[in-house]
C-alpha cells in the first residue's frame, strides 16, 4: 500500500517536473520573441521621435503661461518657412537676425540653410522700434523689405527664412509653406551675485519644477540651488518701474521680466544676470528630408541621402564580386571536387573564413588593399574586404542549393550530349537559382550591417562615391561615426532605424524566397 502511495507521489512529482520544464521552455522561447520586439520597438520609437533637451535663457511659452505671465502685445506676426524647423523666437534672436548677425540657421536649428529675414514694409518701422533698433538699420542688415506679397512669397521660396507680417494676418492669406511661430520673451533675471562661483559651486540650470518653486517662494536661500548663501528675494512685477532695474539693486533678488527690459536696464548701466532654464522638445526624428538630403559636415547637418546611396553602391559591388566567386566555388565543390585532400582543405578554408571575426578582416583590408596595394580608404578597398567576408555565406547556401538539384536533371542533360559545363550552366544553375539568390540576399544583409571590417578600409567621406577610389561612408559605419563624432544620439537612432528597416526587408525577402522554393519543391513531389 505504502509502495503504491510512494509510486503515486513519485508519478505526481514527475508530472509536475514535466509541466514545469515544458512551461519554462515555452516561456524562454517567448522571451526570444520579446527581445526582438523590444529591440525593434525601441529603435522604432527612438528612430521616429526625439525628445531634445536644451538650455535656454527665455522661459518656454508653456512655462510662462503656467506662471500666468502676461504677454507683450507685439504689433506684428512672425511666420517661418515650415522647413526651417523654427518653433519659436525670442527678442534677442530677432534682434540678431535684424542686425544681420545670423547668416546661417545651423547653429539655431541645425538645418544647414542660409538665413533670410523678410519684413513687410508696412510694419518695418514698428518692427525696428520694437527691437530698439534705428529703422535704417534694417536696410543695412541684408534684410529684405517689401510688400506683404513679396514678403510672404520670398519667405515661402527660401527654406531657411522668417517673415514679419502685420498682426493677425489670416492664415488663409499665407502660402502653405509658412506657419506662424511663437514669440517668447520672459526671462528669470537675477542679481549678478546669484550666478557667481561659490567655492566650486554655482547656481545651475533650472528645471521646470525649480522655476515654479523659486517663484512661489519655496527657496529661502540660493544654497538650495547650489549657489551662495544669499537669501532669495522675489521682485514682483511693477507697472511703474522696470523689474530688471529693481533686481539690479537687491542682492539675491530674482524676478520675471522681458528680455527687452533686461536689455534696456543693461543699456542704462544696471547689471543683472539671467538664469538658464531647461527646455524639452519632442518632435519627429526621422523625416523624409533626413532620408534624402545629402550628408554635410560628417553628419552634423543634412540627412543621410548620400550615405544611403553609398551603402547601396557598396552592397551592390560587394555582391558583384562575391556572388560569382561564391557560386563558382560552390559549383566546383558540388560538381567537380572529388573526395580528397584538396577538397577537404578548401572546405576547411571556407569554414575558417566563415568564423574569422570581422575586425580581423578589417585589419587585413587595411594591410593589403589600403596600404600594400595603395588603394587608400576607398570604396574598392572596403568592398573587397566585405566581399571576402561574405564569401562563405554565399558558398554554403549556393552549395546547398546546387546539391539539392536532382541528379536526374543532370543525367537528362548529359544524356543528350551536353558537356558538364553546359549542363551546369543551362540546367543546374537555373534550377538552383532560387536557393542561390536567397543566399546572396542573406549575404547582402550581412554586408549592409558591417562596421568593423569597413572602419579602416572604406573611408569616412560622406559624399556620394564618384569612383572606386573615393572614400564612401556607409550607413552602419555612419551610425558608429555619428556616435563617435558625437553629432547626436537622435541622429544615430534615426539612421539605425533606417538600417534595421532595410535589414528587415532583406531578411524577409530571403525568407519569403526560401518558403516559396520549398512550397514549389513540395508541389513537384
Amino acid at each position, binding site marked *: 500500500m505504502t509502495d503504491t502511495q510512494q509510486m503515486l507521489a513519485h508519478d505526481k512529482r514527475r508530472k509536475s517536473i514535466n509541466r514545469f520544464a515544458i512551461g519554462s521552455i515555452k516561456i524562454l522561447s517567448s522571451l526570444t520573441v520579446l527581445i526582438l520586439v523590444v529591440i525593434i520597438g525601441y529603435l522604432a520609437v527612438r528612430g521616429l521621435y526625439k525628445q531634445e533637451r536644451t538650455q535656454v535663457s527665455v522661459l518656454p511659452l508653456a512655462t510662462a503661461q503656467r506662471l500666468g505671465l502676461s504677454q507683450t502685445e507685439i504689433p506684428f506676426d512672425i511666420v517661418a518657412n515650415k522647413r526651417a524647423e523654427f518653433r519659436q523666437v525670442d527678442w534677442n534672436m530677432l534682434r540678431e537676425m535684424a542686425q544681420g548677425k545670423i547668416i546661417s540657421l545651423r547653429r539655431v536649428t541645425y538645418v544647414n540653410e542660409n538665413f533670410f529675414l523678410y519684413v513687410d514694409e508696412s510694419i518695418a518701422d514698428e518692427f525696428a522700434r520694437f527691437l530698439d533698433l534705428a529703422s535704417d538699420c534694417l536696410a543695412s542688415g541684408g534684410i529684405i523689405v517689401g510688400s506683404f506679397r513679396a514678403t510672404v512669397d520670398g519667405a515661402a521660396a527660401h527654406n531657411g527664412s522668417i517673415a514679419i507680417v502685420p498682426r493677425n494676418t489670416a492664415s488663409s492669406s499665407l502660402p502653405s509653406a509658412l506657419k506662424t511661430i511663437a514669440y517668447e520673451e520672459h526671462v528669470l533675471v537675477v542679481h549678478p551675485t546669484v550666478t557667481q562661483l561659490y567655492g566650486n559651486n554655482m547656481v545651475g540650470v533650472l528645471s521646470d519644477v525649480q522655476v515654479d518653486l523659486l517663484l512661489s517662494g519655496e527657496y529661502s536661500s540660493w544654497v538650495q540651488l547650489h549657489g551662495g548663501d544669499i537669501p532669495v528675494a522675489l521682485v514682483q512685477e511693477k507697472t511703474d518701474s522696470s523689474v530688471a532695474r529693481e533686481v539690479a539693486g537687491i542682492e539675491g533678488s530674482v524676478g520675471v521680466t522681458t528680455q527687452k527690459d533686461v536689455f534696456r536696464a543693461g543699456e542704462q548701466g544696471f547689471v543683472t544676470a539671467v538664469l538658464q532654464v531647461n527646455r524639452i522638445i519632442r518632435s519627429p526624428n526621422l523625416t523624409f528630408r533626413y532620408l534624402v538630403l545629402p550628408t554635410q559636415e560628417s553628419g552634423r547637418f543634412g540627412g543621410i541621402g548620400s550615405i544611403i546611396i553609398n551603402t547601396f553602391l557598396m552592397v551592390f559591388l560587394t555582391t558583384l564580386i562575391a556572388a560569382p566567386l561564391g557560386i563558382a566555388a560552390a559549383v566546383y565543390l558540388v560538381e567537380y571536387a572529388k573526395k580528397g585532400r584538396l577538397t577537404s582543405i578548401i572546405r576547411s578554408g571556407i569554414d575558417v573564413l566563415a568564423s574569422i571575426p570581422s575586425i580581423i578582416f578589417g585589419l587585413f583590408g587595411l594591410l593589403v588593399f589600403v596600404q600594400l596595394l595603395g588603394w587608400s580608404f576607398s570604396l574598392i578597398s572596403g568592398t573587397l574586404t566585405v566581399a571576402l567576408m561574405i564569401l562563405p555565406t554565399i558558398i554554403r547556401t549556393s552549395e546547398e542549393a546546387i546539391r539539392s538539384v536532382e541528379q*536526374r536533371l543532370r*543525367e537528362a542533360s*548529359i*544524356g543528350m550530349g*551536353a558537356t558538364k559545363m553546359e549542363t551546369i550552366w543551362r540546367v543546374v544553375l*537555373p534550377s538552383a537559382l532560387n536557393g542561390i539568390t536567397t543566399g546572396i540576399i542573406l549575404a547582402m544583409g550581412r554586408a549592409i550591417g558591417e562596421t568593423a571590417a569597413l572602419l579602416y578600409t572604406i573611408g569616412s567621406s560622406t559624399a556620394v562615391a564618384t569612383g572606386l577610389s573615393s572614400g564612401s561612408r556607409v550607413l552602419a559605419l555612419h551610425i558608429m561615426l555619428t556616435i563617435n563624432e558625437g553629432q547626436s544620439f537622435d541622429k544615430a537612432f534615426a539612421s539605425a532605424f533606417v538600417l534595421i528597416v532595410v535589414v528587415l526587408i532583406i531578411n524577409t525577402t530571403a525568407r519569403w524566397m526560401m518558403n516559396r522554393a520549398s512550397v514549389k519543391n513540395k508541389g513537384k513531389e
Partner: protein
Amino acid sequence: MMAEVAMVPETEYVFDVHGLNLWYGSSHALKDVDMQIEKNSITAFIGPSGCGKSTFLRVLDRMNDLIDNVKITGSVLFDGRDVYVDYDPMDLRRKVGMVFQRPNPFPMSIYDNIAYGPRLHGRPPKSELDAIVEESLQRAVLWDEVKDRLNKSALSLSGGQQQRLCIARTLAINPEVVLMDEPTSALDPISTTKIEELMVELKAKYTIVIVTHNMQQASRISDNTAFFLIDSERCGYLVEYGETSGLFFNPRDKRTEDYISGKFG
C-alpha cells in the same frame, strides 16, 4: 578481339559488346557480357532487381562516366567503333539518346525542353528550331496535347506527358539509338500503353533498347530479350539472349524459365 568484331556485319548490329566486365569500386557488378544489338528493333533487358540491367544500359552511352570509381573492361562497339576509345562521350550521347525511369523534364518551358539538345549542338535559327520542336513532339505523339502551351512549364504536364516529352526531347537531337530505363514504371496503365505504341512506331527509324520489370511489356513489344541474373557474389551476368518469342515461350535455360514463370524474383 578486333578480329571478331570485324566479322559482325555493320549494317545489322548497332552495338556489339564483347567480354564486358564492370566494377563499382571493388564490387563486381557485371561479368563477361557479350551482346549484339540489332538495328531498328526493340531489345528488352529483363531480370531481378540489382542484376545490372541499368548498369549495362548506361555502359552503352557511357553514362557510367558520371560515377566515380567505375572500372570497365572489354569492348563496346557502336557502329563498329569502340565507344570507350574512338568516341568523345558527348558525341556518342548525341547518337545514343537516353530516357530515364522517372520523367525528368528540365524546369523550363516545353519548347525549351525540346530545343535544349539542338541548341547545344549548334545554333539553329528560330524557324528551324520551331520545325524541330514540332516534329519531335509529333513523333512522340504529344504535339496535339501541348501545341497551344509550348511556353508553359514542362512541370505542368502529367507524368505520362512528361515522359513523352522526354522521349521527344531525345528525338530532337536525332539519335540513332534510344535507350530507355524502365520508361513506364512510374506511369499509369493508359500512359504506359501510349508509350508502348510509340516505341513500336519509333523502331522504324530508331534502334530501341529498353529495361523493364514488366515481363508482359517485354513480351508485348520487344523483338529481342536479354535476361540477366545475379550470382551468389551479387555479380550480374547475362543468362540468355535471343528472340523474344523464343526466350519467353521456349527458354533454353532453366533459370529463365523459373524467372518467367514467377518462381523467384
